[in-house]
């Protein structure tokens, strides 16, 4: 996944997740890796007339009690750690993506 604002991937992933929930699907997990980890940064502060991508995600995670995992290796490389990670997101290992691939009926990747 690519970074929020830089590419549309974060917006598309958010809209898709919201639509899947609206249709009654269970979302096992949203896994953020590569530049996608930047979605979790609580310091994100876009212009007032633009959408706030991080807040959109946090609200979705909390309202629907979904597991949002931020890949630890990708996060460290990009300066994302516990001090800046927002509510609704948890740091986890890449193995949690493999677990998702083992368990999930469907897996959709939003890439640049």
């Amino acid at each position, binding site marked *: 996944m690519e970074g929020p604002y830089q590419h*549309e991937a974060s917006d598309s992933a958010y809209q898709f997740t919201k639509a*899947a929930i609206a249709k009654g699907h269970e979302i096992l997990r949203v896994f953020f890796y590569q530049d996608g980890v930047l979605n979790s940064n609580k310091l994100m502060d876009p212009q007032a007339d633009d959408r706030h991508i991080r807040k959109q995600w946090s609200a979705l995670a909390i309202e629907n009690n979904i597991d949002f995992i931020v890949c630890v290796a990708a996060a460290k490389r990009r300066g994302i750690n516990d001090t800046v990670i927002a509510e609704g997101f948890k740091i986890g290992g890449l193995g949690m993506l493999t677990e998702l691939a083992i368990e999930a009926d469907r897996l959709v990747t939003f890439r640049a």
Partner: protein
Amino acid sequence: MLHLVNKSPFESMSFEDCLKYAAKGSSILLYEDGIYGAMPGSAIADRMASVTSDYKVYVLKEDMMLRGVDKIMDGITEVDYAGFVGLVEENKTASW
């Protein structure tokens, strides 16, 4: 199989790459900058017409609206995000 293409066909090979591997009869969803491939009257319109005879081609309505694209070629089906989820229900998904 559902193939997702999100790059402009005028700038990236990902649409053509996808077609090399996609089995005839499978589904292709154009979204993000991929939606430009659905515009009528472009230099790739003939190519797209032949693709629509071999594949089920869809285009994401929300990304068309955002980009001011309101006409699409015959043989391509408009879906919204709920329709996108529906396609994923029915198919494994490859993101190109």
